[in-house]
């Protein structure tokens, strides 16, 4: 598994995908946090990273999909999948290696935003400070959310040998699970059905963890979500054997 992991990380760094993803994420969140009129931290006068945590899920839909779009589709297009799968390595370790490489890159992308946290802590009213519980909860939620996106992205990339198709499928699926499902909960006419559908959305559990309360139900939801999509990926990946 680590052999694949290492190769993937090197390929991210070598193909500049890593730098582009990190750069884009920091620039966009930076603009929203500090520059956009009236909505930025300085104008709002609230010492929290909430602005970033609200916008990040949408940016990550695009960025995570961009990271994972080639991981399996490219192997299929090149034909290298045939060499990869005839090595004495199980399909599961190949997939997990690729998956963890993508998750690792995302965590690495989130790290520099700790600088925002530091800045806000310095700017905050010394008597009140920053709600650190909510902040760490939100970071945790963001990592779990991005890890869920990555499992969707890997699944999408197993479906096709075309990177662009893979990117689009992944973005649509991510947006569906994050945004569409939670919007259904807001429709009054749907009543209970809407509410129960909302429970299945990534957003519902992301918001729940963001409050700073670590509920095992949320963690289990995210882990189950990831396991489901990775299982689906394995199923598609092994369809050559049918």
């Amino acid at each position, binding site marked *: 598994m680590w*052999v694949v992991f290492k190769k993937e990380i090197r390929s991210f760094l070598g193909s500049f995908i890593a730098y582009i993803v990190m750069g884009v994420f920091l620039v966009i969140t930076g603009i929203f946090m500090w520059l956009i009129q009236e909505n930025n931290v300085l104008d709002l006068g609230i010492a929290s990273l909430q602005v970033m945590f609200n916008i990040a899920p949408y940016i990550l839909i695009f960025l995570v999909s961009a990271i994972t779009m080639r991981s399996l589709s490219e192997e299929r297009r090149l034909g290298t999948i*045939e060499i990869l799968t*005839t090595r*004495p390595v199980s399909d599961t370790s190949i997939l997990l290696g690729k998956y963890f490489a993508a998750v690792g890159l995302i965590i690495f992308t989130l790290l520099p935003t700790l600088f925002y946290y530091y800045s806000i802590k310095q700017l905050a009213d010394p008597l009140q400070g920053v709600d650190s519980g909510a902040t760490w909860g939100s970071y945790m939620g963001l990592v779990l959310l991005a890890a869920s996106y990555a499992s969707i992205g890997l699944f999408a990339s197993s479906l096709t040998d075309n990177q662009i198709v893979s990117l689009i499928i992944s973005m649509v699926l991510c947006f569906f699970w994050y945004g569409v499902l939670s919007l259904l909960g807001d429709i009054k006419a749907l009543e209970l059905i809407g509410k129960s559908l909302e429970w299945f959305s990534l957003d519902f559990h992301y918001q729940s963890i963001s409050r700073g309360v670590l509920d095992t139900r949320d963690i289990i939801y995210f882990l189950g979500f990831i396991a489901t999509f990775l299982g689906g990926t394995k199923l598609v990946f092994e369809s050559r054997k049918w």
Partner: protein
Amino acid sequence: MSIQVNHLSKRYGSQWAVNDLSFEIPTGEIVGFLGPNGAGKSTTMKILTGYIPATNGDAVVCGFNLNTDSLSVRKRVGYLPEHNPLYLDMYVTEYLQFSAGMAGVSSIKTAVKKAIDLTQLSPERNKKIGQLSKGYRQRVGLAQALIHDPEVLILDEPTSGLDPNQVVEMRNVIKNLGKNKTVLLSTHIMQEVEAMCSRVILLNHGKIIADNTLEGLKQTSPNDSLETIFRNLTNSHVGSI
């Protein structure tokens, strides 16, 4: 026996790509897998390397059954797929290190060095694979196949698309390897078989139509060239298309 194939069949949809194939290859033999396009050569090789399972029948490679112990087979087999797929943005050494890691080699550095020496890749070792000529790319493909010093080498059209000089070099490399390994290689060039192989298995429409030593095959019609024999054998079965 390095490779034993018993009544192997593979069906794609309603079409039998490989139909009831049986043959044996003893250790240390270089065998040419011959046949027109679509005869089932690649499919058989894909099954023998564990990429896809057979529909019926079984194959034993290096003493391990592919249906039950594919992992043990994959440890002992080196495979060069058709069209030689490669990561073009990787460096030669980097790719071979990756291959060695995937093959579970204990001393990666020695394995890479040995594979580079065997395939005479030394002058190009620090280049990106995408920058290499076709001949050198083919050597990289061969190098990754033998990185773990496998007992059996399965090479799917190892010389296709090479220029005449490169073909001769490639043949010499494979012939050298064949001194202490079992090699199964596919081709549709008769001279290739004459230059490298001691035995020929001729396939057509997923079936074996000849399995003979080179001399044996020549004796079936002494006045014809190997090319003519090949055409006679494969054409006599064309009626079933």
